[in-house]
């Protein structure tokens, strides 16, 4: 039996996590200036970018000056990579000999971006994740199972190292299939795991149907950390996961090029804390570019990793959309909260039949309706000049008798939450694609003719 230390604090760093906002701001400005100076000195790409904007690191004196620094987009990184110093190109700020880690983005939106890290950067990745795990209650009493493919994608790699740093016992569930993973979790009485929401639901499904194991009853998992998709911040999806596993489900947000920058704490205030000691996160009005400080207004997340050195992430346009929360968190952290996590993607929010639609809104409706399976697919096409939107769903096997009632409720909720009418297609149970990593359930075929 692993025993807890007595009198443990709820914070990984009680000093930084409870700093007054003004002090945090001063710290961020100091660190922002330092990373800009570093990139200006060490990277041709950044120096050229800043010189073309007429900016020198010394010009950054106040918080308002930060907005003068040009933003970087993923497409710019693609353009400079696969050149010397191979394969990273001239955003690399350290000699190649100092790079110890390679990861790459998934390539969902185009050519993958390569991410080099030094050992210090890798320590930093684990440090950022340690803030997350500690805030979510991971301690040296946990046996953590990681059911993901340990490969070129960063996924839960840093979660693994952070769990070790926090003092947990880590079980790597790499090349096992889903059934073997479930059985290993049962055999070892694992207490926590990390996975995408899609896989959390898929594992529970497999456990029940193929192994006759009810994760909530037969396993010891009490804590799950999600990443990769917004599901753990969508209340209906979170509820499905928590019921299936009998565990608390926590969200976190991060990206290969950025790091792990936001997390839900055990108080679960309906949003994610931004780690403002390690990252500078600004929300920008999508149309005007104005920095949004007030709560309640949606903005695009522009983010700086304040301590990452091999390939710095400075004013990175993440395309994620978020909203500041007005409420402080009962956990006592002063790190601000983005309400409801990532609420959309600037490049995902699309107009269908003249109405702005975020795919997460459809997920919230589908997952809130009893009798539907976890899987669905949305296809937008054009019929003549008109948009057409089809929602494919599956009824659970024993719900056929309630079919008409379920569909009527689904139509009503979709109309209410998205202001759109859909063609609903009911597919046989288990016939829609199942995903282990980033699910692609929204297909806009209008762009392809």
């Amino acid at each position, binding site marked *: 039996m692993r025993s807890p230390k007595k009198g443990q604090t709820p914070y990984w*760093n*009680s*000093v*930084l996590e409870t*700093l*007054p906002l003004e*002090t945090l701001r*001063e*710290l961020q400005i*100091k*660190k922002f200036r330092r990373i800009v100076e570093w990139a200006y000195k060490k990277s041709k790409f950044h120096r050229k970018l800043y010189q073309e904007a007429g900016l020198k690191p010394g010009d950054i004196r106040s918080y308002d000056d930060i907005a003068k620094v040009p933003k970087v987009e993923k497409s710019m990184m693609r353009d400079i990579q696969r050149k010397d110093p191979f394969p990273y190109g001239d955003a690399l700020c350290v000699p190649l000999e100092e790079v110890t880690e390679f990861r790459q983005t998934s390539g969902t939106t185009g050519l993958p971006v390569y991410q080099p890290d*030094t*050992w*210090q950067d*890798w*320590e*930093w990745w684990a*440090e950022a994740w340690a803030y997350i795990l500690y805030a979510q209650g991971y301690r040296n009493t946990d046996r953590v199972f990681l059911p993901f493919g340990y490969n070129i994608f960063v996924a839960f790699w840093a979660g693994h190292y952070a769990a070790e740093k926090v003092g947990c016992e880590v079980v790597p569930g790499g090349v096992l299939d889903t059934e073997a993973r479930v059985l290993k979790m049962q055999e070892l009485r694992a207490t926590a795991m990390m996975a995408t929401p899609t896989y959390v639901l898929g594992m529970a499904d497999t456990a029940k149907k193929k192994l006759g194991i009810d994760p909530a009853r037969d396993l010891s998992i009490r804590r799950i950390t999600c990443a990769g998709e917004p599901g753990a911040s969508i209340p209906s999806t979170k509820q499905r996961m928590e019921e299936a596993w009998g565990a608390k489900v926590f969200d976190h947000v991060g990206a290969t090029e950025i790091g792990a920058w936001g997390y839900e704490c055990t108080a679960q205030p309906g949003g994610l804390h931004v780690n403002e*000691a*390690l990252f500078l996160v600004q929300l920008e009005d999508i149309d005007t570019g104005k920095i949004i400080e007030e709560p309640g207004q949606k903005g695009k997340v522009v983010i700086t990793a304040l*301590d990452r050195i091999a390939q710095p992430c400075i004013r990175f346009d993440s395309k994620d959309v978020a909203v500041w929360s007005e409420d402080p968190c009962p956990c006592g952290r002063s790190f601000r909260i983005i309400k409801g996590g990532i609420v959309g993607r600037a490049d995902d929010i699309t107009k269908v039949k003249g109405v702005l639609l975020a795919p997460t809104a459809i997920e919230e409706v589908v997952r809130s309706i009893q009798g539907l399976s976890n899987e669905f697919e949305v296809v937008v096409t054009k019929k003549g000049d008109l948009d057409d939107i089809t929602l494919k769903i599956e009824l659970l096997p024993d719900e056929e008798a309630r079919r008409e009632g379920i569909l009527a409720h689904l139509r009503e909720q979709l109309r209410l939450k998205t202001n759109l009418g859909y063609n609903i297609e009911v597919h046989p149970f288990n016939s829609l694609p199942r995903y282990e990593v980033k699910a692609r359930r929204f297909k806009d075929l209008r762009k392809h003719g």
Partner: protein
Amino acid sequence: MDRRELKKINTRIKTIRKAAQELKDFSGSIPAVDRNAARILASAKMLEINISDLLEFTSRN
């Protein structure tokens, strides 16, 4: 935790950095010393991020 305690921690962090840097410089032809010292320096940086970077601001609180 008050500033005095933070300063004490910071003093130790500086000592670790200095010792690890010296080890690295003295490592000569022993990679086992050079690379392990490099890892200690990376850990020292995490301590600096957590404590040292903040010190100049806490003096005013």
